[in-house]
């Protein structure tokens, strides 16, 4: 049953939502509209001359091979982060769900990375994997792997993916664990009696029943890989080498604050905004319909 509150005064409901509206207006609509406006301006690096150029910034972007490359980098990065992050955390959740003794200890340890700041997480992996002082690098070099993320684009991508996945596993783990624990034990017992082994039970019973959780996490992880990994990239590879880890968000920052090309940077922000809006729409459409069962 829907609960309905009827206000007698006409201004009170507006007053109550005013703080939230103010925050949204000041911190979202205002900057967003500024970005929209800015994306159609061309400005020199010293902001001495400004020119209105309509959609030229966008046209330039899609003609720029480096921008298109950063699209590809983002696609590879977010796919890897989402797939690896979800797979590992589902695996960990499935194991943690079966642990009988010290379960709380495992769960606590698995949730800890979430409390680590993004930049700190990145530095942690830089220390482990730095080609000259990293502990893991020493091992890799001893095994004959010429590990150097500072000059090897693939290595750089591996580093940022590892850091980003490690940071996000806790979040995914929590949701998967909750999802697993919501599945009645008797369903699995019934499947066991029906003849399904553990692997079969997982794929035919557990996994389909987890699909609403999985879908939610896929969207959250894509958004995370797109936007929240800025700190990791900035603190570890700074987008390099040769732009190998320059994602769309990182390029917005680079072009805006370092190249001082505000028009292009704003245009890129607008494109990102469009991507987020699309993702949100997709998520809500599917969440509304849910996975039917």
């Amino acid at each position: 049953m829907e609960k309905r509150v009827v206000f007698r005064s006409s201004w009170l409901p507006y007053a109550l939502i005013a703080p939230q509206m103010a925050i949204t207006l000041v911190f979202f609509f205002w900057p967003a509209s500024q970005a929209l406006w800015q994306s159609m301006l061309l400005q020199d690096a010293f902001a001495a001359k400004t020119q209105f150029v309509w959609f030229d910034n966008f046209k330039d972007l899609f003609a720029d091979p480096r921008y298109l490359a950063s699209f590809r980098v983002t696609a590879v990065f977010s796919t890897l982060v989402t797939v690896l992050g979800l797979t590992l955390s589902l695996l960990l959740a499935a194991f943690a769900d079966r642990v009988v003794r010290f379960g709380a200890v495992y769960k606590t340890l698995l949730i800890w990375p979430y409390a680590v700041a993004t930049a700190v997480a990145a530095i942690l992996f830089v220390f482990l994997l730095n080609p000259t002082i990293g502990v893991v690098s020493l091992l890799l070099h001893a095994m004959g792997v010429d590990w150097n993320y500072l000059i090897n684009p693939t290595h750089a991508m591996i580093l940022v993916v590892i850091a980003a996945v490690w940071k996000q596993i806790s979040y995914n783990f929590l949701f998967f664990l909750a999802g697993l624990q919501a599945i009645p034990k008797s369903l699995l017992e019934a499947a066991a009696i029906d003849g399904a082994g553990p692997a079969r039970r997982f794929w035919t019973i557990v996994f389909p029943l987890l699909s609403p959780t999985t879908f939610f996490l896929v969207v959250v992880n894509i958004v995370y890989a797109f936007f929240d990994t800025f700190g990791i990239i900035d603190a570890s590879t700074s987008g390099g080498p040769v732009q190998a880890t320059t994602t769309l968000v990182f390029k917005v920052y680079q072009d805006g604050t370092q190249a001082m090309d505000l028009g292009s940077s704003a245009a890129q922000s607008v494109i990102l905004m469009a991507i987020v809006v699309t993702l949100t729409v997709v998520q809500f459409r599917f969440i509304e319909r849910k996975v039917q069962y």
Partner: protein
Amino acid sequence: MAKLAFRDVRKSYGAHEVIHGITTDVDDGEFVVIVGPSGCGKSTLLRMVAGLEEISAGEIVIGDRVVNRLEPKDRDIAMVFQNYALYPHMSVFENMAYGLKIRGFAKDDIKARVDRAAGILELAPLLERRPRQLSGGQRQRVAMGRAIVREPAAFLFDEPLSNLDAKLRVQMRFEIQKMHRQTGTTSLYVTHDQVEAMTLAHRMIVMNAGRAEQIGAPMEVYANPATQFVAGFIGSPAMNFLPGKGAGAGRVALDAGGIVMHASGTVDTGKSVVVGIRPEHLAPCSAADAAITGSVELVEQLGADTLAHVSHGGAMVVARLPGGSMPDVGTTLTLAPDPARVYLFDAATGARIAT
């Protein structure tokens, strides 16, 4: 189809034993009900047969195999759960076909078996539905369908009717009887409801605190309860228990006053006993013959008969009187039992005292 056997089956969690050695045989095609109050170990016993709980000691035999070390899927049993345990993301058809598909049955065979089960359980129009679109009774029938399509050696029922309302429960009891008549499969049925036990069982195992207090046909258990616990658990309304002492010559003097004549058992004079009288074996009598004299505190009219609650000493005694009789609340009622149907129990051990 197969026989089942329990040989001194025990279950313990660490040092704490919860089932203290159950031994019995279940014949091919027999319907055995395990009945007892919650926490008596009846569900644990059933889950040990299913392979969902380890057997700590003793042996369970299905057919001619000891199944202690077998996985649930290799025991050739099917189970119906209290909460139905239907797969929510599969249709009714898929739910019933799941076990067959895993066992590698041919598609035509699966369809034939599911259709046959759907026919028996009147599920044919519902095969494409999802469990959430079904009522409680329908879900229960699907759960039974899932059990019968495999034609297992034995059916295990774990309180299958306790999530249903009273009317549906009666109907499903009938359906289960019908299904058993048609398939003739050996069945083990766990319930805490003695009415289900009485109506469904060929034989019942009355459990209390991890022990089988009595194993026997329902009417035999009703007529000859082995212990005070069984006597109190089977029969509704429950048997009246009145403490007393042997007074010699087939008489027991009740602590709350009155003398009860009994036809069976010998009680040493002065020995403490508990007299058990079923409400249906009490009848009004003259004040001179009365074993129980007390004022009527409550009258429950059930139509076919009337339950009179009479205060006797500190305790309440229930008498089942014919439907027409309607004693007024507050009046004094004098009652006497049929001496042949007076049960005597040892006050210390609860064991039946019989000749």
